[in-house]
Every structure is written in structure tokens, then in C-alpha cells.
């Protein structure tokens, strides 16, 4: 099987819908198959990185807990778009640990396949 580099972009906020969880599960399955995708948070997706979240109304495993476990599967760092963070008035110290800023255009160009959530 040819091996391709995969980028998973999470662009929706957590809790209000299942997009974040679905993006994270997709990334985890890639890692479990031995090919950890790159995981990037952009737009409202950066809100999934806020520290201090709790289990939400959807009642699903908190996405924050899932995010903290990703490094065990070699999915690290948690890349984020710095302009999306700034536009929301947020700073890196409000995010959970393990986050790093990324250049989104360059990151897209460096991967073979991009999946959006």
C-alpha cells in the first residue's frame, strides 16, 4: 500500500456539534494504523484547544480528554492557525499544553490528502 501524508483540519467549534470528535477519531485511527496524520485546528476549530473544558451536552467523551491523549499515539504537536486564535482574542497561554502555531497554506501544500471536519 502506498503511504500518503494526511492532514486532518478541524474547523468547527467543540460541543455544539460532533465535528471535533469525528476529526479526532479519524486522526486516532490513522495513528493506530501506524501512520499518524498531521492535526491542524483552524477557524473555530481553535476553540477546541481552550484549556478548562468539561464534558458537554452531547455527553460524549470530552474532546479535551481525547486531545490530551493524542501524544500517546504520536499525534503531536497540536497545530493551530495563529490568525484564527488572534481573531478570537485568545492567546497561547489559554490553550491546553502541546499546541504550536502553523502556517496553514504551507501545511496544506506539504500533504498528499486533506480531510476537513
Amino acid at each position, binding site marked *: 500500500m502506498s503511504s500518503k501524508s494526511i492532514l486532518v483540519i478541524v474547523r468547527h467549534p467543540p460541543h455544539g456539534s460532533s465535528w471535533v470528535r469525528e476529526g479526532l477519531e479519524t486522526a486516532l485511527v490513522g495513528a493506530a494504523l501506524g501512520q499518524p496524520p498531521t492535526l491542524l485546528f483552524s477557524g*473555530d476549530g481553535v476553540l477546541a484547544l481552550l484549556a478548562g473544558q468539561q464534558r*458537554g451536552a452531547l455527553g460524549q467523551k470530552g474532546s479535551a480528554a481525547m486531545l490530551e491523549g493524542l501524544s500517546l499515539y504520536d499525534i503531536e504537536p497540536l497545530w493551530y492557525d495563529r490568525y484564527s486564535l488572534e481573531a478570537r482574542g485568545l492567546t497561547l497561554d489559554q490553550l491546553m499544553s502541546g499546541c504550536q502555531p502553523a502556517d496553514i497554506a504551507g501545511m496544506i501544500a506539504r500533504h498528499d490528502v486533506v480531510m476537513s471536519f
Partner: protein
Amino acid sequence: MSTLHLINRSPFAASALQELVSAVSEGDHVLLIEDGVYAALGTAASKWPEGVEIRALREDCVSRGIAPASTLLETIDVAGFVALTASTDRTVSWF
């Protein structure tokens, strides 16, 4: 006679909040719910018209890591949400 406006969309991703702002009357109430509570973050604070009360649903703030203490808005729980629907004349949902 007043209206309760509910908004459940993130102010960063959708224009629903802007549309709501142009549709409120003096004495109306606005309740941010679900992803709408992100409007409680500093940069999202809109220029609200005078005489309109804005609140955020506490449970949806807490799950999202938006501490009520850090917001500029009053937060209320679900009982407060119910009370608002009873004390206003109609509810309009923006999504």
C-alpha cells in the same frame, strides 16, 4: 411586550449574530446558547443596541471552558432560561 432572542451560532463563523442585532427592539432579551456563547469572549462583544439585556447560558459556557467570571456578560442556568421564555411574549431562534 418584549421578545427573547436565542442564538446558537458562533459569532466568528456565522453572521446570525449581526442579523439578530439589527432585529432587536428596546426591552428585548438575548440569550446566548450552545456555540452562541462564544460571543461572550472579549473580541466578539458586539455593539449591542441600548436597552437590550444580553445573557449567556451558564452550562454551555462551562462545558466550553469559558469561565462565567471571565465574561462580560451575566450567565443564567436553565431555570433562568425557562423564566425568560415565560416573562417575554415570544421567542425567536437565530441559527
